């Protein structure tokens, strides 16, 4: 494990570079295939609306994967993430057009946990169309 960021160089409040991730229907079809999650709420508008959703929604695990990229890109080595958890608070609604939806992710160092293990807690916020899509979103990251 070879994190690029040194524990000594971060403070509580240090912001990670924020990112915006696009998601279209094509993204969801590809993710369904790669992950093996073929639940029709993620690709079939008729089915999604039939179960009371506003439209097709993104896989929660897709949103969780996108949010993780803010942390792994910052840390350098994805293996620096030793713990990662989220709550799925609202769905990412993905319309059937060429632009789809966007997932905006910001993150900051919320705590320095352990000087020996050089671990920090990063708190993430993910929003789409103005609503929070991930809550209690936290990663524990082991720095250099």
């Amino acid at each position: 494990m070879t994190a690029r960021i040194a524990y000594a160089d971060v403070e509580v409040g240090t912001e990670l570079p924020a990112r915006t991730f696009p998601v279209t229907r094509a993204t969801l079809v590809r993710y369904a295939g790669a992950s093996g999650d073929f639940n029709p709420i993620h690709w079939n508008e008729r089915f999604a609306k039939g179960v009371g959703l506003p439209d097709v929604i993104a896989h929660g695990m897709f949103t969780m994967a996108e949010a993780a990229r803010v942390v792994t890109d910052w840390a350098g080595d994805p293996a620096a993430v030793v713990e990662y958890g989220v709550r799925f608070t609202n769905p990412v609604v993905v319309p059937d057009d060429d632009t789809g939806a966007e997932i905006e992710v910001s993150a900051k160092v919320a705590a320095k946990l352990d000087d020996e293990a050089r671990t920090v807690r990063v708190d993430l916020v993910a929003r789409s169309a103005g609503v929070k899509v991930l809550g209690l979103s936290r990663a524990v990251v082991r720095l250099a």
Partner: protein
Amino acid sequence: MALDQSFTGRTYPPTEPYEVGREKIREFAVAIGDANPAYTDPAAARALGHPDVIAPPTFVFSITFAAAEMVTQDPKLGLDYSRVVHGDQKFRYSRPVVAGDVLTVTSVIESVKSMAGNDILDIRGDVHDAAGEHVVTAYTKLVARAPEEDK
């Protein structure tokens, strides 16, 4: 109908081994749009100290969630899967998943609760490699919403 809370603590037998392939990791990395070379280039992964390409942090969910079907499809538990939504997800890693890993998952029902007519099921999936070493544990909270007529 509330789930049987006596299922709390129940452990299911380990899954058949899942062999992690480089190309499956690549397919997943492309699907999440992540160009990190640690996922696709063995030399880049080795430069970070890994024996081969590693998987993105959430990759293992496909394996643990398939394993959790033993729980969610258990006729004795009687979960109405058409009403289930994914509430929370957490991973605790001992090390990253690496191409070539042969992984087994042991699923445990950590708790069964009913709140306001909803059934809340916490499932833990302990993932071990071929040597029996711990790789990662996945914690999955599923919420089965109450049927309309019960409200």
